[in-house]
């Protein structure tokens, strides 16, 4: 019998401890599938950021380093510059990338560092129990905006792709989602482009992935997907924001 579906070699045979309906499992798998497809597992280094995906080392079957909160792009810079033949995946959540690590994110992009950033945007802090993130939508409730996000007091949800896309160091920038099989496949396509860009030395490549956090949103997994489609995709438009090849 022919085996047509299996665990990627770049995933450990573990059951993830993420909550039901969380997008991290899917995204971890996409990251791992591409590591296998490009045949780069032996030189890949993933970054486990502070947040729920601090456990990424338990699931990825390649080298992993745990970075301090928000510092993943700086750690990635040090690794890639120190060992140029490595392939570095900078995996970060919205609090990590767009709040505490904003400076590191902007400057790594601006220097055109040669690593892939996977930015998981679920509009909330997951691990600490559902606080407001820089990407929390206007009106959305969280533990630290219990009356809903009020932009007059708390500012607006940051669109990271739109903020970074014009920096000359950026080679590729896209926003996908994991709310449907179609979007999962499209997101994989974006990631594939990001990987190949970095492997070909074209520069900083960034894929934002709109994802769910049913536990902290207070929804069932199915309801969370509906909420993502109805609310997040309006503010976080999917698509390619920068592609150095298309421009060339």
């Amino acid at each position, binding site marked *: 019998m022919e085996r047509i579906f299996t665990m990627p070699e770049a995933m450990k045979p573990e059951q993830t401890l993420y909550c039901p309906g969380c997008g991290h499992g899917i995204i971890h798998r996409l990251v791992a599938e591409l590591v296998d497809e490009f045949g780069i597992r*032996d*030189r*890949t*280094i993933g970054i*486990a950021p502070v947040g729920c995906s*601090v456990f990424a*080392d338990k699931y*990825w*079957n*390649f*080298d*992993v*380093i*745990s*970075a*301090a909160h928000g*510092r993943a792009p*700086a*750690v*990635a*810079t*040090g*690794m*890639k*510059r*120190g*060992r140029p*033949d*490595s*392939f*570095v995946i900078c995996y970060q959540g919205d609090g990590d990338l767009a709040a505490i690590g904003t*400076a*590191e994110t*902007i*400057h790594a992009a601006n*220097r055109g560092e040669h690593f892939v950033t996977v930015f998981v945007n679920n509009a909330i802090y997951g691990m600490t129990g559902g606080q407001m993130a820089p990407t929390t939508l206007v009106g959305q409730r969280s533990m630290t905006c219990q009356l809903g996000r009020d932009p007059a007091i708390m500012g607006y949800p940051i669109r990271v792709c739109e903020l970074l896309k014009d920096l000359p160091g950026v080679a590729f920038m896209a926003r996908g989602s994991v709310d449907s099989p179609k979007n999962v496949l499209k997101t994989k396509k974006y990631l594939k482009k990001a990987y190949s860009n970095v492997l070909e030395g074209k520069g900083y490549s960034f894929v934002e992935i709109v994802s769910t956090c049913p536990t902290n949103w207070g929804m069932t997994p199915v309801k969370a997907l509906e909420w993502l489609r109805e609310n997040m995709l309006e503010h976080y438009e999917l698509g390619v924001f920068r592609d150095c090849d298309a421009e060339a």
Partner: protein
Amino acid sequence: MSERVLMKGNEAIGEAAVQAGCQCYFGYPITPQNELTAYMSKRMLEEGRVFIQSESEIAAINMCFGAAAVGVRTMTSSSGPGISLKQEGISYVAGAELPLFFVNVMRGGPGLGNIAPSQADYFQCTKGGGHGDYRVIVYAPSDVQEQYDYTMLGFDLADRYRIPVLLATDGILGQMMEPLVLKKYKDPGDLPSKEAWRLGDPATKEPIWITSVRLGEGELEEHNFKLQKKYEEIAEKEVRFEEISLDDADIVMVAYGTSARVARSAMEMARAEGIKAGLLRPITLWPFPEKRLREIADKVDNMLAVEMSLGQMWEDVRLAVCGACRVHLHGRTAGGVPEETAIVDQIRKIMNSKGDEIIRNF
């Protein structure tokens, strides 16, 4: 073979790092260490190595964390305010047991303070600075040659023990020029290989995980006990100090770095007028030469801590001698540098005093 040149302390540190095979330098501007960053911006690129002026000190130390994790020699440098920002990253480096060499060219604090020379980061240098149960090896050079030599040794010790090593110097030592012998770096030959733990190496069979997070029950305590064993070994083997005229001394000064240079002159002045003064100069601030100080304390009635801070090192001297003799304090701060005559005045007062009286200059 070795060339003799006139060089600034900050630049001597940079050249020693280049010679010692530092592959990646990450830094952010701050006075009075700017000559070091500037020097590296040229030399590292000349050598085809990595230099980044980072967006912040926080980014710089985390770049070091990444570079150390792939197994290359890496360093950063700053002054007090920037080192404060780097403490989080240093704690991570210590927790993950990575080798790191870093430099603090001390200036006056607290806060933004001033840009004058100081030793007021003694606590920060020696008592951790960042969070958690960890130690950092601290070298306190007192001239340009020592800044060069201990930079080279610092890289070796960082690799040997997989620990952060700090060169604690100050605005005077960093900025002054002195003759320097540009010794060639000599690999000790017995440093442990990094192949078993470095990231991104295709030769490694199993995936490696570098982290400072240990959430399992008892896991972190076990790890910290392991770190402690390493620190005990370092305390046993790596303590360094210089003794000057201790054999017949009635009073012993304890001073490091710039303060030790002044204390040495004061010692000679005191001896010229018949007071038998001696000097113990710690070269490592951690490990501190506590055993030797305890031995000396049994032979003298008085010690005098001379420092460019207000009693920070004095605390360690008192802890070391454990009440065996009186320990007095001559402290200056925020750009104030001890003066020989003021030290000798205080020595006279001490020699004429009785009982338990502790004499300070302020």
